[in-house]
């Protein structure tokens, strides 16, 4: 079997939801040992508040989002309000290369796990702290969820129709931007550590990672004074540029035309309809955009999506299915990349997991072990890896250290 890229890397993870633990998931997919520390006293929101649950019945071991975030990790429970719990966390950290946490700023320090404390006994430690707005600044302590932060970073105002309220994106869009940047920042710091033999504290602001994805908007406003807002599916550089109905209920395709030659190919493919003027140039098409959109929608709505796509692809016109969530499981490109995986789980039977969007052919990701139950790996980690004796383990358990 091929090696995995991050074999030997040891990571301890604190926190919940997606923004921290999904960073660890990418590392675990590639062979890092990732130990996720949680507590029964205050369960991860993904375990308790995020449908769907297996058979529609809420429960901490039945939550699909939690499962999807935690494949191939070791899961332990520790009550960090106890001294012994904190000491065990420190022992886990002392044998690790990196720690990931996404608590509200200040939480780790209050638990006795602040960077200064940890770095004193482990100067090579890399600590990734990822939170909404960064560890510093006047709004650092303000709690928030990814959905709202997605709004504050500009994405929501850019989504929907100019004459309507903005539309939401599904889920906490920005969290997964911050996840990619979290993986990047952590691996860059570990690389530097190989040379300097010194770790560091990474303060990652999810808000600021989101702004990287809207940078052109911010630059455009400063250069031109134009405040770009949501505009349906229109684009400044292409006409037509839209989503059109195909035969059937709620079946859509996306079509765009980016230059005169492509426009000519589209006209030919459609048999030179009257609504498609032979005029060349973006501005000429722009002035006829409403009629073009109506004509194109009328043409697509009388055909199956398969036929629309086949005909426009033969004509080398930009076209794609608007994949719904069922389509994503049958998409030939995603299938080829094995994006969707199904892992076994003692309570759920099976759960959905996701493969990485990038492929490393020499060191492919392995998505093998389903998510852990609460404290499933306590013995394996505390006795096996830290060397607690059976007696000691039982005493600590009785004292609620593993709650």
């Amino acid at each position, binding site marked *: 079997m091929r090696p995995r890229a991050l074999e030997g890397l040891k990571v301890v993870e604190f926190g919940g939801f997606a923004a921290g633990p999904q960073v660890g998931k990418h590392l675990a997919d590639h062979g890092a040992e990732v130990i996720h520390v949680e507590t029964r006293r205050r369960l991860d929101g993904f375990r308790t508040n995020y449908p769907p649950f297996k058979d529609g019945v809420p429960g901490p071991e039945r939550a699909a989002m939690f499962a999807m975030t935690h494949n191939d990790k070791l899961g332990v429970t520790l009550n960090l309000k106890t001294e012994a719990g904190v000491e065990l966390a420190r022992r886990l950290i002392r044998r690790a290369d990196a720690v990931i946490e996404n608590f509200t700023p200040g939480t780790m320090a209050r638990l006795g796990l602040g960077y200064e404390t940890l770095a004193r006994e482990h100067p090579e430690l890399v600590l990734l702290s990822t939170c909404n707005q960064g560890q510093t600044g006047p709004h650092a302590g303000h709690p928030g969820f990814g959905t709202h932060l997605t709004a504050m970073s500009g994405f929501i105002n850019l989504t929907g129709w100019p004459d309507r309220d903005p539309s*939401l994106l599904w889920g906490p869009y920005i969290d997964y931007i911050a996840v990619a940047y979290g993986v990047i920042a952590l691996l860059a710091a570990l690389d530097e550590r190989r040379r300097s033999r010194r770790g560091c504290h990474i303060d990652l602001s999810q808000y600021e990672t989101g702004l990287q994805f809207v940078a052109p908007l911010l630059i455009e406003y400063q250069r031109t004074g134009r405040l770009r807002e949501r505009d349906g599916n229109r684009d400044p550089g292409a006409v037509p540029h839209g989503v059109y109905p195909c035969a059937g209920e709620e079946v859509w395709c996306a079509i765009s035309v980016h230059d005169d030659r492509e426009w000519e190919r589209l006209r030919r493919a459609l048999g030179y309809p009257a609504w498609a003027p032979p005029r060349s140039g973006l501005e000429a098409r722009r002035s006829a955009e409403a009629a073009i959109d109506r004509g194109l929608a009328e043409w697509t709505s009388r055909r199956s999506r398969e036929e629309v796509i086949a005909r426009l692809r033969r004509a080398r016109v930009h076209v794609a299915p608007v994949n719904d969530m*069922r389509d994503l499981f049958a998409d030939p490109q995603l299938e080829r990349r094995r994006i969707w995986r199904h892992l076994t789980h003692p309570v759920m039977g099976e759960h959905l997991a996701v493969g990485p969007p990038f492929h490393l052919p020499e060191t492919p990701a392995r998505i093998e072990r389903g998510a852990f139950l609460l404290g499933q790996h306590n013995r394996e980690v505390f006795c096996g890896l830290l060397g607690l004796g059976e007696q000691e383990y039982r005493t600590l358990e009785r004292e609620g250290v593993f709650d």
Partner: protein
Amino acid sequence: MGDLAGQDGPLRAVPLAPYRVLDLTTELGWLCGKILAELGAEVVKVEPPGGDLDRDTDAWRAYNVGKRSLVLDLDSPDGRRLLLRLAASADFLVESFPPGHLDRLGLGWERLHRLNPRLVMTSITPYGPEGPWATAPASDLELMAAGGAVWLAGDPDRPPVRISLPQAACWASAYAAAGTLIAHHHRAATGRGQHVDCSAQASLIPAIVHAPIFWAMEGILPHRSGPFLVGRNVHGAPMRNVWRCRDGHVSFALYGGEAGRRSTAALFGWMAERGMVPEALRDVDWQGFEGPVASPEQVALAEAAIAAFLATLTKREFYRGAIERRILGYPVATAEDILADEQLAAREAWQELDGVRHPSGYARFDGLPARPASGIPEVGELGWHVAEVSGD
């Protein structure tokens, strides 16, 4: 961190300082090279004679900051020969040409790998290098559609929409950079490079990953629902998340859990101070109100009162109140709001280039920002000569 930038520039983190990147990307991969540049790598952007055609666009300026430009004509034997010489000593090569393009130029993975077994090469493509869609033309709209993001956004009575600013290239580039650094970690240990393959369509799956689970697990097909959150209430009640206020919109929702209950109670406390809690809701124990299990009737009643209250506030008033009272909510910001944000000013989250502020420094390494050393590159500033690039 051990390494700091040069004496004259502001201090910045440069964890990738020892490495050189050849950046052959089109728009689909610009941000990938920028990410490596802001972590301190020397990123040599290879441009065709005359430079990229889209140099004056805002996206070009945003995503090529910090690179140095080298003009090379890859259609000429001389240009290809120079590229091979550069690749022989490069640490990374990032490209986003259509699948097979570099192979046809004699610059494909096999050749580069033989020349430089340590090289980590990253190819970013719309749909991956193989398969029925591999060579289909794809702009942002098609990729957002094929990746599932379009289906989920927009109002139910109109066609689904994409975000009105290209996003697919950003997702592809960011996840490509993550994959590149994972491959680099392996190379650092073994000396062996590899060819990282990143699909833009697949990179959009993380952006929407909460939705397909409903299909996989329950056979439910999540639908676009405008300003409402769906799938968060066990009775299926849509939960409003975007609300009108006096000068735009704000984002807030009736969540559950400890934080959600506290947030709801704090908002109703604020409303009570302003006399805006209607009679029917005066006796509700908001500390015990669980959005995810509340009945649709309860949700409707509470939301009508909240809508009336939020309509009296500006975005700024709401946000200030939300911070003071620890309410889970934020403004629905425009570019203007973001540029005026106090938090970003306090964190010096901007880099000013030619009088324009670019968002910069998303992470601080021991306080030092990940920030490009240089600004927007001039065409061919590194010239045509290998000697100038390597500095010998």
